[in-house]
């Protein structure tokens, strides 16, 4: 309708300028008409019939308006727009070649079918219209960008949509200064959550408006998606895993679905999820155990219902590296305590935990348990990093700070902050504040405030409960009710000696204890990160009560679970001397990945003198060897770039050699495990609109893209010309004139003036 009335699209009016182009004669005519208007008015005043004032005013207004419309046409209005001369400027068109384009949500057609019908380089309808005005250059993109030369086809099989990379690469491949515009036809799905500011700024600086054509529905009618999984990617065998699973839904209000968690195909957990009305996303917490060592493929899935738009986003796979090694933990007890006996019993059958104990049974007399050789700890508590850092965890029982030398206290601090070890201090008469740890390097590590002058003890039996943070922690699941669900009711109270009520900022309280004699619950188990490692305080001294107490059934495993999970948690941050990281956790086949290795010496200081070699065993049995380059900007860091061509599991290891010493770190890298394009696959209208607005372009929904050739925002620089479009013959002018004359006639008839 607009185009019929005004001849040109509204968008053209918005970017153009309207001026009058009438000649001087016309302006003289205006003066003449004005001069003639005066006698006309006078004539009306002396009309043969007496008119009422209101009629006279109305008729004069209508007639004046008619004359004004006529004059407007006579002044020859023109619309001046900046336009591009055909065949001089080119337009780049980026077409999405990713797998999400196969989703059938463009009416009954797939997104790919729309793209082919509208933007096929030779036969597309919109392509044809664009070709009449521009020289289009076609590119397809998904994980990478490729020119869509004649003869090349689109496969719609890219596993991800890397728009940022595409914009960067396009900028390098073509001279964007010659572009009148860039058109991106995409659903925007799976574009990584990275800012495109840098890329968009480059196009904006080159004055290239980016227009986006959004293909697909911005919201599916019915769909459910396993959106994200938050869980550790590496753990010790036997650890309890807490996974937070985010699930989003459309059209599942009031419905209940089951989230299944499988470990290499074996079901390990089932969680029911009910969506309240309007609740588009929910996060559920699942617990399961990492029972077997090695890389384990975990699948989180919800069985698709028949009418879902997309089934592939109902499952998400994660590789969990389960470490089967024995983690050595040193437990130093300042006096014989049953806590030691029962702790040792709790983990005795755990092949992943090796607790080495040293008990001071008399002054300068130690009883060593679980040692690997007669020399181990023969000289008492370790005095060097080489000795102490062989352990991944350290438990200090009832031993006073004064037992240690200043150097040993510093060593313990380094053990946590530099080596990444875990320190656990237990409650006891010689521990914590009573042990004189306030104002020592060890006291600084601890998550609780050791008040100077608060060495007095309280003796309370506290009922232990997890805090909110504790329930979300592997510790929160150690106590199970008869139904197998976490339950802390019925556990006997434990003894507390230390009046520790305050934790440090940044510390988490996982368990707390309440007693009638206490004004408020006090932290029982608290933790905080410190440097690379972590420090915990368990401010009770008889957890063995949960094993021995009359009310605890013999078959109850709470005490065993407490120590097995707590000690696993304790050593979780302790790293090897060579650690690997990859730039992308879930790369697609063919993607280049940066592998970063951090190499530490025996005292866990960065080692800049190592020769690092990346060895990759590929899924097809090849062995790739790549030298790693030392990064001068970061101590102890070496880098290499690996192209993972094949889907499957890449076994990576880094061999760091220094002299005769060879240290090896390893990691597993799943390639092609997740197809990112299947997730967040709705057309991301807001995202595409922002790109257009940011660069002076325009966003088109696919159904509105037919006018793209005419309305495409173009660069104001380059080979553009001013184009003048005559407006005097716009139908709206003549229709207005006819309407005004008609209204006058009707008014006269109505008022009996004819």
């Amino acid at each position, binding site marked *: 309708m607009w185009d019929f009335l005004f001849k040109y699209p509204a968008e053209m009016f918005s970017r153009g300028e309207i001026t009058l182009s009438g000649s001087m004669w016309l302006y003289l005519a205006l003066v003449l008409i004005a001069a003639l208007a005066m006698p006309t008015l006078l004539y009306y005043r002396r009309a043969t019939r007496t008119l009422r004032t209101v009629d006279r005013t109305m008729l004069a207004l209508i007639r004046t308006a008619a004359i004004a419309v006529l004059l407007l046409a006579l002044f020859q209005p023109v619309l001046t727009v900046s336009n591009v001369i055909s065949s001089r400027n080119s337009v780049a068109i980026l077409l999405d070649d990713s797998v999400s384009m196969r989703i059938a949500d463009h009416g009954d057609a797939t997104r790919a079918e729309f793209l082919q019908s509208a933007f096929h380089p030779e036969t597309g309808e919109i392509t044809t219209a664009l070709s009449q005005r521009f020289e289009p250059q076609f590119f397809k993109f998904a994980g990478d960008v490729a020119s869509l030369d004649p003869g090349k086809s689109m496969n719609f099989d890219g596993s991800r949509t890397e728009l940022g990379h595409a914009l960067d690469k396009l900028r390098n491949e073509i001279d964007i200064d010659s572009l009148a515009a860039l058109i991106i036809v995409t659903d925007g799905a799976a574009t990584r959550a990275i800012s495109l500011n840098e890329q968009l700024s480059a196009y904006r600086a080159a004055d290239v408006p980016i227009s986006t054509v959004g293909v697909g529905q911005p919201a599916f009618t019915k769909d459910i998606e396993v959106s994200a999984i938050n869980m550790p990617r590496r753990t010790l065998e036997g650890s309890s895993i807490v996974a937070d699973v985010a699930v989003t839904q459309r059209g599942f209000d009031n419905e209940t679905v089951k989230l299944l968690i499988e470990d290499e195909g074996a079901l390990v957990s089932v969680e029911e999820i009910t969506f309240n009305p309007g609740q588009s996303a929910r996060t559920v917490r699942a617990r399961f155990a990492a029972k077997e060592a090695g890389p384990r493929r975990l699948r989180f899935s919800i069985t698709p219902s028949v009418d879902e738009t997309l089934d592939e986003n109902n499952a998400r796979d994660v590789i969990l590296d389960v470490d089967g090694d024995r983690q050595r933990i040193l437990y130093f007890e300042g006096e*014989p305590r049953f806590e030691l*006996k029962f702790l040792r019993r709790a983990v005795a059958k755990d092949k992943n935990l090796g607790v080495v104990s040293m008990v001071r049974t008399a002054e300068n007399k130690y009883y060593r348990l679980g040692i690997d050789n007669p020399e181990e700890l023969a000289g008492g508590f370790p005095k060097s990093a080489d000795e102490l850092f062989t352990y991944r965890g350290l438990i200090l029982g009832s031993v006073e700070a004064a037992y240690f030398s200043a150097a040993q206290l510093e060593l313990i601090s380094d053990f946590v902050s530099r080596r990444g070890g875990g320190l656990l201090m237990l409650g006891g008469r010689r521990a914590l504040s009573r042990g004189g740890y306030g104002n020592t390097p060890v006291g600084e590590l601890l998550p609780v405030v050791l008040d100077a002058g608060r060495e007095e003890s309280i003796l309370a039996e506290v009922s232990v409960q997890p805090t909110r943070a504790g329930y979300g922690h592997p510790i929160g699941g150690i106590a199970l009710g008869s139904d197998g669900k976490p339950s802390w009711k019925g556990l006997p109270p434990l003894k507390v000696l230390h009046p520790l009520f305050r934790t440090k900022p940044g510390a988490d309280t996982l368990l707390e204890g309440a007693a009638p004699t206490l004004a408020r619950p006090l932290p029982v188990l608290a933790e905080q990160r410190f440097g690379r490692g972590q420090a915990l305080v368990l401010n009770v001294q008889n957890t063995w009560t949960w094993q021995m*107490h009359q009310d605890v059934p013999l078959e109850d495993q709470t005490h065993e679970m407490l120590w097995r999970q707590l000690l696993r948690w304790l050593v979780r941050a302790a790293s090897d001397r060579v650690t690997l990281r990859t730039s992308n956790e879930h790369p697609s086949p063919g993607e280049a990945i940066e592998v970063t290795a951090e190499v530490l010496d025996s005292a866990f200081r960065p080692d800049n003198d190592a020769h690092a070699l990346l060895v990759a065993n590929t899924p097809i049995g090849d062995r790739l060897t790549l030298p790693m380059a030392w990064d001068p900007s970061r101590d102890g860091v070496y880098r290499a770039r690996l192209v993972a061509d094949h889907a499957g599991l890449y076994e990576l290891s880094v061999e760091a050699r220094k002299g005769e010493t060879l240290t090896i770190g390893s990691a597993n890298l799943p390639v092609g495990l997740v197809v990112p394009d299947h997730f967040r696959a709705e057309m991301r209208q807001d995202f595409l609109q922002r790109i257009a607005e940011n660069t002076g372009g325009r966003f088109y929904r696919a159904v509105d893209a037919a006018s793209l050739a005419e309305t495409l925002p173009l660069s104001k620089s380059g080979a553009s010309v001013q184009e003048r479009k005559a407006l005097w013959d716009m139908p709206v002018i003549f229709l207005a004139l006819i309407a005004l004359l008609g209204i006058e006639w009707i008014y006269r008839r109505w008022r009996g003036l004819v």
Partner: protein
Amino acid sequence: MRIRDTLAIGAMAALFAWFPAAAPGGDDEAHEFFFTRGIYSDTGDDDWGGRWAVDYPKADLQFLIALKRLSTVHAFDSDNALELDDPALRKFPFLYILEVGSMNLSDSEVTALRNFLDAGGFMVIDDFWGTWAWENFERQMRRVFPEREIVDVPMEHPVFHAFYDVTEILQVPNVYQGSMYASGGPTHEYDGYVPHVRGIFDDDGRLMVLINWNTDLGDAWEWADDPSYPLKFSTFAFEMGINFVIYGMTY
């Protein structure tokens, strides 16, 4: 009495005198170790008011003095006798029982003792002599653990080396025979000529029950301050007892 023995006894007496007496009613709950003596049912054919109470409480108190003096064990100074089927027994994982030759456990005691040991408790048996007493004890333990064997504990077992290195099992006589030992008197009672240390082990090879048969450690503790009782035996008895405690608190 020889001069050497006199000096030794004097030294031991001085050792005990060095420690103050126990303070009942103190902060007992804060202590880590309680020397808990088991009260059990017996055949009741004597006038002692229960065989469980032999040497009680002096033996217990004197052992505690030595334990505290010689080790870092934070022990409660006073005695702590409990019936076997008292639920509170499970708060004290170390249990001492003697004179089991006339022990006659009730069903509830059998169940309680089995659960105590299965949960992780450690029991030391002492002061019963001869074949007849052994048979009664074995019969009672069969009720507690029908499926577990009673075996000799080898000398290389940690229970003999947890604090002191004990390399030989001595027969520790009662106070009467101890006083006669210097004059060549025997150390055995009835037909218990050879001392034995036997044990009942759990499924993981840990000692649950340690049996001192044909020996009387309790008397050696009780009469350690008696100049007529040979220091050799009381010293050995303290070494064994402290080893038992350290073992019981670590394994």
